[in-house]
């Protein structure tokens, strides 16, 4: 049976990620105006943000599909992509050029969501396999 909490979490994650993406983009623009943000540092930050957005879309789609069709393969793939998303989120939390307090807050929330999702995915995969 599909895991309802996981599906709810996917839905909430999707909405939250839209907010996260816009907020991070806005903050990068703000940092570029207020602080000294040379192009060699700005480009990697922006590129990683867009890569993270693509990964997130993929991850949520695969996870949702796997959960609803009760297949473990897409769900497993989604779990693997989650690892990449976690690394990117840690980058935005720790290794970004400027880490503002707001960045810390939204990335912490995102990491918490990822952690909860991963646990629920593992449980769901275990349920589907057996």
């Amino acid at each position, binding site marked *: 049976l599909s895991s309802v909490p996981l599906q709810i979490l996917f839905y909430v994650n999707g909405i939250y990620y839209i907010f996260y993406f816009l907020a991070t983009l806005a*903050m990068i623009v*703000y940092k570029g105006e207020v*602080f*000294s*943000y*040379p192009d060699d*540092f700005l480009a990697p930050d922006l590129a990683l943000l867009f890569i993270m957005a693509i990964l997130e879309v993929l991850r949520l789609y695969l996870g949702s599909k796997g959960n609803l069709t009760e297949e473990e393969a897409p769900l497993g793939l989604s779990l693997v992509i989650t690892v990449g998303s976690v690394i990117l989120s840690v980058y935005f939390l*720790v*290794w*970004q*050029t*400027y*880490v*503002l*307090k*707001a*960045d*810390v*807050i939204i990335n912490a929330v995102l990491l918490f969501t990822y952690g909860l999702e991963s646990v629920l995915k593992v449980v769901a995969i275990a349920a589907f396999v057996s």
Partner: protein
Amino acid sequence: PPETHATARARTRSGPAPVTDVAKLCICDLLVAQCDVNCCCDPDCSAADFSLFTTCSVPIVTGDSRLCTQKAAIYSLDVEANPPERIFKLIDQVNPSVFCIHAANYKQALSFSSPELPTSENFDQLLEQFGSATFSAEPDSWNMNTDAQNPSDANETYRYEYAVPIQTVDAFLRLPSPVVSSWCSDANPAGFLVNQATKCTRSVSVEKCGNIQAVSMLFYINSGILAVNITVQSVVVQSLNGMRTLLNGSDVLRLPMILDELCVNIVLGVSYHITYTDAGEIIEAAASFVLGAINKEALSVQQSFEISFTQVNTKPVPLSGNPGYVVGLPIRAGFRPQGYPFPVEILFAPNTNKYGQLTILQSTSNQDCLAAQGPRTPILFGYNVVAGCKLRITAAMKCQPLTQTLLDLLKGQSFPEYVASFGNSQAQDVLDWVPITHLRTSEQRIYNTFQSSCQIPVSLEIEVKWTKYGSLVNPQARIVNVTATTTTTVLKQLPPGRERTIPITSSVVFTDISSPAEPGYKAWPTINAKLPFDFFFPFV
């Protein structure tokens, strides 16, 4: 050798590290090893000094306030305690804003970067990066302009524009002039068509007579203007007491030399006359010199220089205005040559001092008429002049020669017949010249029936009537009428042995007879609305 390499590498680091510890940073600590007043963070102050402070000029020293947490050093004075003491607190200040910088991985973001110190390795790269034309190593780079000016100059004559320095073989023609003080500086170039006259002081001495270049004729002739040699036009020798004599032969170059403890032939004045064509080429250059002598006591001489330009094939007649007379310029006057009943071309003499100018007698210091026969002053437009002298008449003087002498004295050697009505009147324009009217009056009111008694002229009054001519905003002065009135008086016969002194006066008066101006307005515009000729065609 390896030691120098290591030291060289060590030297490529930047300057000293900036102070960032807030506990040690004190901006009011200006005096070294001394306590600054009211500076609570000064480490040189002792507790006794703190007790004398009234406030803390620097209450808080913080790090970058954009960080989420930063250290802050707070200095305050506790005035309640006896004696007052300084309180120093080191706290962590928290920035409440949600957009404070939690961490920054870009090290240079939060402080000013120390600039690279130039060493022998990176000097060229730094010069290329930061140096521009001002610091470029080759000064020839900003001479490009003059190179562009002389590319095809070698064989053709150089064409000048107004105020361009006149080129000579080595640099440019110099007209020494005073710069800050009155000492001569040789760096003043003579500009084309710029008439200059300068006076400056040169230090000389009899011992260095032959060595000072700037007082020798050779210095001023030597630098030939490009393609033209400077010829010597005339040489005037001035003696020690100021008398000047014109030398006949001007071909000989006179160099300074010592003669009888005087240094003679030193240049006191140079006057250049440059002739040019209307295309801007210089075709002739002449210099007139005034040479003088100095004695042992002289430490400096005053030199005067001037340069004037004349266009080729024209006579240099200075205009007194264009077209109206300018106040202060001499009145142009002249004669009509004899034997011409109808002047086709009236030859007027130019305004040289020799002939044809309207002049007035010059008062001398001893007011003796017979001594005043020499120099006369030219009459300048707009300046009313009164001059006079006293004539001592003895019994032996005869009437007729006395009359003639006085007439010569009053009118001068060659009193002109015509006066130019405009400042730029040409000799060919007959109608532009005003004839001088002569009047005679007698001093005695009662007409003396004795015609045979001697009448001698005692006063000449020249009245010049002028008017304003032309537009309202720029009126030009135009001479309309010139009247010369000679007043005569009867010379009574003196008993022998007695003498009389009579005053002789001469005056020039300029009268403005211009009528008040009437502004002329254009006609009112009319609306020209008429029906066409064949408007009512079939019926008309």
